[in-house]
């Protein structure tokens, strides 16, 4: 050991000269995710925001410029909230948002109802089995999400596995119409996002101390009452995290309703697509996207602030 190691050192030596200009390790660690957010979230967000204030024109790119020089050469900013007003005028958009939120919420609920027991079972399983089960939960990620959703068509079709099985068992004599219904969309979303529900719940439930369950049982709570008074409230953070991970992407879901949904499955993702590709109205499409983002981000921020407040207490 060197002598310098023994001599008392100030906790943080002041940085001198040029070193002051270099980032410290800590700022670097914070800077990387910040940069990521900036490049992949904030910049596109501002680009969208800027397009949403423009006007659709037939040009390349197909929207009006933000700055324009008039005859005298003075620079004018051309921005208008017209596109947002437009969204308010037509009930279609409101209905699409509401319907997207409804579909996402119902899917989230079912993902929770299905995912919770699975997560619970895995968390309570002994070690070798637990790893295998966890692997099975994430295994579907090894194949393309598109293929997996397509595969559901094979189950749900008129001549699909489910109908053929039910008919051959004599349970039904006419095939059930499942494809191109909201039911199929729910199945698709719940199936696709189930791992995002299971994993945070699992992470939460493995931390649950078995002694708490025994304590409740000992104090006269049946296993059912124990679940509702102890397990469930303690797993609330996992429920919230899992639900967010399912709910948020489900709101903007485009592919699943496109592949499994029926004509009247109205979701904002499809409206956005139509605005962008069919109406060729990039500004309105951008406005639709921005509103959607706000609708999604607002509840998260609210939740976060509630949680912060609770922690402060």
């Amino acid at each position, binding site marked *: 050991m060197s002598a310098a190691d023994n001599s008392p050192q100030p906790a943080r030596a002041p940085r001198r000269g040029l070193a002051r200009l270099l980032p410290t390790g800590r700022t670097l660690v914070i800077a990387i995710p910040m940069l990521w957010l900036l490049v992949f979230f904030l910049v596109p967000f501002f680009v969208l925001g800027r397009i949403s204030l423009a006007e*659709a*024109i*037939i*040009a*390349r*790119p*197909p929207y009006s410029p933000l700055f324009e020089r008039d005859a005298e050469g003075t620079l004018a900013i051309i921005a208008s909230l017209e596109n947002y007003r437009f969204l308010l005028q*037509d*009930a*279609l958009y409101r*209905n*699409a948002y509401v319907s997207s939120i409804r579909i996402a919420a119902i899917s989230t609920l079912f993902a929770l109802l299905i995912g919770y027991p699975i997560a619970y079972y895995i968390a309570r399983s002994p070690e070798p089995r637990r790893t295998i089960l966890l692997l099975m939960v994430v295994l579907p990620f090894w194949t393309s999400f*598109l293929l997996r959703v397509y595969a559901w068509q094979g189950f749900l*079709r*008129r*001549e699909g596995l489910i109908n053929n099985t039910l008919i051959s068992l004599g349970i039904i004599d006419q095939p059930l*119409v499942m*494809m*191109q219904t909201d039911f199929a969309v729910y199945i698709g979303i719940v199936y696709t996002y189930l791992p995002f529900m299971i994993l945070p719940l699992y992470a939460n439930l493995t931390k649950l101390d078995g002694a708490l369950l025994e304590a409740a049982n000992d104090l006269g709570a049946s296993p059912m009452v124990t679940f509702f008074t102890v397990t469930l409230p303690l797993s609330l953070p996992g429920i919230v995290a899992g639900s967010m991970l399912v709910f948020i992407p489900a709101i903007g879901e*485009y*592919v699943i309703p*496109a*592949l499994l949904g*029926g*004509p*009247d*499955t*109205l979701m904002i993702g499809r*409206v956005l*697509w*139509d*605005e*962008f*590709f*069919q*109406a*060729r*109205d990039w500004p309105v499409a951008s406005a639709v996207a921005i509103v959607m983002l706000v609708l999604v981000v607002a509840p998260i921020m609210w939740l976060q602030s509630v949680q912060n407040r609770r922690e402060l207490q």
Partner: protein
Amino acid sequence: MNTPNRTATATASAMALALGATGAAQADVVNVFNWSDYITEEVLELFTEETGIRVVYDVYDSNDTLEARLLAGATGFDVVVPTADFMQRQIAVGVYQPLNRDLLPNMEHMDPGLMGQAASFDPGNEHGVIYMWGTTGIGYNIDAIAERFGDDFEVDTWSLVFDPEMIAQVADCGVAFLDSATDMLPAAMNYLGLDPQSTDPADFEAAAELLESVRPHVRYFHNSQYISDLANGEICVAIGWSGDVFQAADRAEEADRGVNVWYAIPDEGAMQWFDMMAIPVDAPNPENAHAFINFIMRPDITAMITNYVWYANANASSWEMVDEDIITDPAIFPPQEVLDNLFTAVTYDGRTDRLITRLWTRVRTGQ
């Protein structure tokens, strides 16, 4: 195998849009962006063999995808294949460069009549030549129709899908419509005796009302799902694109499970469309692009493509080399009296685009 498919899913196009192939400006490369399953690999290999130019080939499945990329700019593509009505609007924006006819000697093989029709979108055929063309008609399951309407019934009218009483009789075995306002609204207007090229909002409204009246019997709206569904008996009637329905027929035959599919151009008339080869204004290798287009226009090459994808071409000199059962099929190469009954699409302005998009959403979703 014979697998022409002018469309795929909207999803794949979204991915193509996100990932994209960025063409490179190299002397020995041509970057081609075409519809999926719209060519045979052999043609590309032959081209490289003969010219030494490598082909970087990428595919899309909807005009909307192509247009979004062209308008965003700097696509890096040398040759693209828009449908003529889309091309017209894109020309107005200045997306394409004029073709250099000196580099396209094979132009002489093109049929003047068909090229003349295409010229209504691209005056003087200055920016594009026809790659393939087709119609939007009715694909159907022969046995399912015979079972419901009798053996003598011939599918020769749009009533099958636009008359609520008739469509109700096939609803149980499944009806699919194209999810394309620019195909469906003109078809409905034509059936109502209105001008299919009208841009009068009242005419669109009438078409939308007609479509809404039959919508309860429509299982889904989609641009490619019907190919496999027709082929495996999942649905029995579809409004679709000619080559795609033939692909379904071909698949059904190969599967050999007793499903027989065919295509009809109804007597009331149908939309005829042209897919055009064109060169973006910022193409990195315009000479190679011209060489590619000229190569495609060689009669033996065009014939090779038609024989593979079952779409009609506009290359008059190639027709003697097209397979007998394709060239004589009235649903692919229609006789003159049918041709006279076809109509083409028109290019809509922004206001009309918005109107029909909105009407179409209403038809599709009931909103």
